[in-house]
């Protein structure tokens, strides 16, 4: 049997999926620092896409360009386009708050709202959006906590502060909070780097599980995590996309020497 050439096969693997986000020639700056240099990349729907690269390569910046968080930093600028359903989220008139509802985010350090209970943390986004029905809130809070694999651990203490939970639980609480507003995409910026191995595995399982319904983009420094959790992996270096393709290919036979050197620990 003739096998298709590797490059063709890799391209086909991406084309075969529906697109969740299309980044077109995305550049980003912090004042004079040119952090992203023309990233063009298709993020497939309901898959886990990992973004890897050494510190300072622009991976977190790229993530933050996908839900208009980058522009919140003073002096930050973005150019290029980020298309969802064919529409650029940077088109004038698009409400960044709406974008961030569609594209949620979870950070490296769990950041539950410190004065709020577990319940209030999860309901925060909805309450802010004006959802007043107690019954609806109850339902969504339970659904979100279940989806974040936290319900069974907290169902009897929903009125306790979010900060009373362990680190791993707090991170799942933040995921539940992000899920409560029904995002289409969840961005995870090193979501497990502050957690112990068992909590890390739970977050990874959760990411895989969530990808049945939503699109996940995860930034990680941990090669094994990227290899375990993602369907596709992008390697960024100095603000450029060096290589992007199915995770299995990238970690067993990268096309680019720079990818090989990075993932085998020869630099970075």
């Amino acid at each position, binding site marked *: 049997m003739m096998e298709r050439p590797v490059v063709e096969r890799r391209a086909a693997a991406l084309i075969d999926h529906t697109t969740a986000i299309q980044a077109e020639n995305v550049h980003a700056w912090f004042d004079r620092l040119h952090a992203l240099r023309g990233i063009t990349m298709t993020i497939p729907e309901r898959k886990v896409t990992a973004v890897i690269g050494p510190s300072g390569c622009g991976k977190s910046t790229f993530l933050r360009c996908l839900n208009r968080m980058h522009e919140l930093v003073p002096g930050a600028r973005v150019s290029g386009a980020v298309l969802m359903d064919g529409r650029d989220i940077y088109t004038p008139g698009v409400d960044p708050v709406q974008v961030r509802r569609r594209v949620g985010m979870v950070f490296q350090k769990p950041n539950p709202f410190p004065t709020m209970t577990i319940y209030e943390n999860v309901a925060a986004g909805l309450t802010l959006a004006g959802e007043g029905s107690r019954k609806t809130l109850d339902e969504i809070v339970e659904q979100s906590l279940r989806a974040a694999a936290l319900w069974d651990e907290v169902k009897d203490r929903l009125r306790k502060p979010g900060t009373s939970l362990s680190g791993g639980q707090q991170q799942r609480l933040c995921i539940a909070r992000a899920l409560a507003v029904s995002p289409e995409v969840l961005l995870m910026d090193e979501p497990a780097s502050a957690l112990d191995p068992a909590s890390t595995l739970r977050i990874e399982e959760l990411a895989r599980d969530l990808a049945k319904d939503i699109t996940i983009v995860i930034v990680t420094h941990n090669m094994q995590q990227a290899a375990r959790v993602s369907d596709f992996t992008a390697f960024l270096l100095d603000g450029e996309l060096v290589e992007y393709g199915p995770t299995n290919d990238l970690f*067993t036979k990268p096309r680019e020497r720079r990818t090989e050197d990075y993932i085998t620990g020869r630099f970075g």
Partner: protein
Amino acid sequence: MTRETFEGELHRLKDDVVQMGVRAGQAISRAVEALRTRDVALAEQVVAADDAIDAMHLELERRCMRLLATQQPMAGDLRTIASVFAITIDLERMADHAEGISRATKRLGLEPLVKPLVDIPAMEARIQEMLRETLEAFRAQDARLAVQAAAKDDLVDELRNRVLHDLLDVMVKDPQTISRALELLIVARHLERAADHITNICERVVYMATGELRELNV
């Protein structure tokens, strides 16, 4: 283990695979030599030496496991370690075939051979060529050389078929020879299998070098 020691350990691992390959080749060569010269003592030595090759195999496997567990290798490093894992199994089996040949030699004792040994030493010579090229391809991560080495398996198969036909003739003509002829057939079979193991190693070398896992000589 730091990254630098990891690199060193990978090099040593590859060197030791080559060493094991040389030992397996020597075992085959000495086994055929013992048969040719009817040297039962030499055959016994080959049998006894197999334990050392088995030990090398286990030691290399342990080292691969340790590297996998402590270094989480990726890409080329991962392919190398995974290949070494598989290659040492094939080398160990090759040495087992040398042992099998030696056992046949011992069973034959000093009884006269049913035919002059021509094709069996020729098989052995082909195998040594294949093995030399394969170990060189492994050392240099040279996929083309590995494919070229594996192609020689066909010659070994051809020689084995000739041995089979010749021995059938002998046995048909004189059924008294059957048990002795069968021993030679067993030897030819061991050599043919040894060449198959070298072909497997060639497949691993191609995988190491290119990332393509495919069968050679199908």
